[in-house]
C-alpha cells in the first residue's frame, strides 16, 4: 500500500500546522484561553504528523505503528505519573529527547548519503548538495548541544549532581574555541559535498558531535540552581532551531517554518524571563548566567542575638488583628508539600473578610510561573496571585506579610549589596508591610548562599518549623481563638 501526498499539497497541510501554532501561542499568553491554545497547537502537531505519514518513501508503516504505540504509552505514563513539582525536570529530559531526535535523524540522513550517494536526496537537494551537508552540520550541532545541555539541567534539577554553578577557568575562551571548531568542521563538511562517500566526512561529523557535547556540558554546568529555568527555556528554543535546521536537510518547508517559529518565540520567552530577574540575555546565550558567589561577612555575626522567634499561636493572633495579608510562597512551600495547608489558611482568612493575596516573584519555585501552577493545583484562584509590581503595590499598604519558604526573593541586600550574586534582582518589598512573619526551617541561606538581613528587622517575627506543620498549627490556633 502506498498512499502519498503530492509535496505541493503537503506544504498546504504544514501551513495549517503553522497557523495552529501561531494562534495556539497567542492563546497561551492569557490564562483564560491557555488550555485551548495548547489543544489547538496539539491539533497542528497531529496534522503535521499525519502529513509526514503520507510522504514519499514512507512505506514501513508496521515499524512506525509499533514505535508510536510504545512511545505514546511511555509519554502518557510519564505525563500523568509525575508530581507537578517535578515539571521542570520532566521538561528538561523530554527536551533533551527532542535534541537527540534532531541529531540522530541528521546522522541517519548523512549516513544514507555516504552509503548510497546523493541520489537518496530529493531532486531539489541533489542540485544543491552543499546545502544538505551544511544543514546536517548545523542540525547535528544544535541537536547534540540541546541534548547534553538538557540532560545536565535534568541532572541538576533532580539533584543527581550538585546544583552549584561550576565554572571552568577561561570558560569564555574555551567556549569560543569549541564554537569556532564546530564552524570549521561544518565548513569542511560543506566543501566536501561533491565527494559524499569520502570517509573523512564521518570524521568531520564525529568531530562536530564531540565539540557540541563539550559545549553543552560547559554551558550548562556553569548555571546554578535558581537560574536553571532560563537555560531550559533557552534549550527549548534551541530544540526548535534544530528542527528548522533539520528541515533544511531535505527542504521540508513545514519543519523549516515551525522550527523557526518555535525557535524565535522561545528566544523571546528566554529574554522575557531573563529581564524579570535582571539577568543579561546575551550573558545567558554565552553561558555567563550565575555570578560567582561572594562570601559575605559571617551569617552568625549578622544574625547574632537579633532574631525574634515565636510560636504559631502568636502568628495566629497577629493574623486575627490584620485586615490585609500577603502570602509570599517560595520553593520551601513546595518542598514541604504545604500548598493544601496554605489553602486552608487562605480560606480561613478570607472567610473572615480579610483581603488575602499571594505575591509571586518571577523566579519563585523552580521555573518562572511554577509557583502559580502549584497554587492553582490546590484551587487558589489565579487572580489572587499577584505579579511583582502588583505585589509591591499591595505590600506597601499591607498589615501582614507571611514568608513561606522564600528567601532570596525577599532579601533586601539585592537593593544595596553590589558584591552579592542577587544584586540588582527585583525583589518583593515585604519589609514595607507592617508586620513580617517568616516561616522557615532554619536560618540556612537560599540558592544565592548569602544571609538575609530581613530576618533581623524590628517588624520581623520568625517561626522555625517545617511549613506544613507550622501552617497547620496556625490554622488550628486561628480557628480556636
Amino acid at each position, binding site marked *: 500500500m502506498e498512499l502519498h501526498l503530492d509535496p505541493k499539497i503537503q506544504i498546504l497541510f504544514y501551513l495549517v500546522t503553522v497557523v495552529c501554532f501561531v494562534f495556539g501561542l497567542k492563546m497561551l499568553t492569557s490564562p483564560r484561553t491557555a488550555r485551548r491554545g495548547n489543544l489547538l497547537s496539539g491539533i497542528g*502537531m497531529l496534522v503535521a504528523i499525519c502529513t509526514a505519514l503520507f510522504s514519499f518513501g514512507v512505506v514501513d508503516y508496521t515499524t512506525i505503528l509499533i514505535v508510536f504505540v510504545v512511545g505514546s504509552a511511555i*509519554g502518557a505514563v510519564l505525563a500523568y505519573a509525575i508530581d507537578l513539582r517535578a515539571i521542570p525536570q520532566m521538561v528538561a529530559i523530554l527536551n533533551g*529527547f527532542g535534541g537527540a531526535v534532531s541529531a540522530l535523524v541528521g546522522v541517519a540522513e548523512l549516513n544514507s548519503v555516504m552509503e548510497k550517494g546523493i541520489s537518496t536526496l530529493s531532486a531539489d537537494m541533489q542540485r544543491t548538495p552543499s546545502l544538505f551537508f551544511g544543514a546536517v552540520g548545523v542540525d547535528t550541532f544544535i541537536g547534540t548541544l540541546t541534548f547534553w545541555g538538557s540532560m545536565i539541567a535534568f541532572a541538576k534539577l533532580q539533584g543527581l549532581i550538585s546544583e552549584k554553578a561550576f565554572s571552568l577557568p577561561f570558560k569564555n575562551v574555551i567556549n569560543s574555541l569549541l564554537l569556532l571548531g564546530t564552524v570549521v568542521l561544518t565548513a569542511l563538511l560543506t566543501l566536501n559535498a561533491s565527494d559524499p562517500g569520502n570517509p573523512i566526512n564521518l570524521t568531520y561529523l564525529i568531530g562536530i558531535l564531540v565539540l557540541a557535547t563539550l559545549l553543552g556540558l560547559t554551558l550548562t554546568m556553569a548555571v546554578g540552581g535558581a537560574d536553571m529555568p532560563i537555560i531550559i527555556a533557552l534549550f527549548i528554543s534551541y530544540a526548535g532551531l534544530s528542527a528548522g535546521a533539520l528541515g533544511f536537510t531535505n527542504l521540508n518547508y513545514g519543519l523549516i517554518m515551525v522550527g*523557526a517559529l518555535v525557535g524565535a*518565540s*522561545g528566544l523571546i520567552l528566554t529574554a522575557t524571563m531573563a529581564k524579570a530577574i535582571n539577568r543579561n540575555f546575551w550573558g545567558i546565550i554565552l553561558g555567563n548566567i550565575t555570578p560567582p558567589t561572594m562570601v559575605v561577612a559571617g551569617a552568625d555575626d549578622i544574625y547574632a542575638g537579633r532574631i525574634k522567634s515565636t510560636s504559631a499561636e502568636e502568628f495566629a493572633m497577629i493574623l486575627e488583628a490584620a485586615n490585609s495579608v500577603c502570602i509570599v510562597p517560595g520553593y520551601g512551600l513546595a518542598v514541604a508539600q504545604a500548598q493544601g495547608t496554605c489553602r486552608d489558611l487562605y480560606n480561613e482568612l478570607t472567610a473572615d473578610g480579610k483581603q488575602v493575596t499571594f505575591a509571586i516573584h518571577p523566579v519563585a519555585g523552580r*521555573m518562572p510561573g511554577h509557583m502559580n501552577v502549584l497554587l492553582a493545583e490546590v484551587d487558589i484562584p489565579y487572580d489572587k496571585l499577584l505579579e511583582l509590581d502588583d505585589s509591591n503595590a499591595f505590600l506597601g499598604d499591607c498589615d501582614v506579610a507571611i514568608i513561606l519558604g522564600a528567601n532570596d526573593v525577599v532579601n533586601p541586600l539585592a537593593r544595596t549589596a553590589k558584591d552579592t550574586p542577587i544584586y540588582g534582582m527585583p525583589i518583593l518589598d515585604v519589609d514595607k508591610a507592617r508586620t513580617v512573619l517568616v516561616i522557615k526551617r532554619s536560618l540556612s541561606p537560599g540558592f544565592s548562599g548569602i544571609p538575609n538581613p530581613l530576618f533581623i528587622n524590628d517588624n520581623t517575627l520568625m517561626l522555625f518549623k517545617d511549613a506544613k506543620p507550622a501552617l497547620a498549627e496556625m490554622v488550628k490556633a486561628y480557628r480556636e481563638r
Partner: protein
Amino acid sequence: MDPVIIALVLFVFAVIIGFDVINKVPPTLHTPLVVASHAMAAIMVVSAIIVAGEGAEASVLSKVLAVVALLLGVINVVGGYLVADRMLAKFKNSRPVKKA
C-alpha cells in the same frame, strides 16, 4: 522560484512571527508557555517518521538510528502535550468564567 530561496523566505518570516507572537507574557504563564512551546518544539518527529518509514532499500544503520529517534520523538510529543494540558487544566479564576 528556487526552492532554496523559498525555504529561506519562509524561515525568515516564521522567525519574525515567532518574535512577534510572544509579547508581554505575564510571568504567571511563563511555565505553561515554556511547557507548551516545548511540546511544539517536538516537531522534528516529522523527520524521524519520514526516515524511519523508509523501505528495505534503506541503509540499516540509518534505519536503526531513525527508529530510536522516532521512539524518543513520540515520547517527547505525547509527554509534552499531556503534561502541558495537565498543568493548564489547573488554572481557575475566582470569578466564574464567562461563557462565550
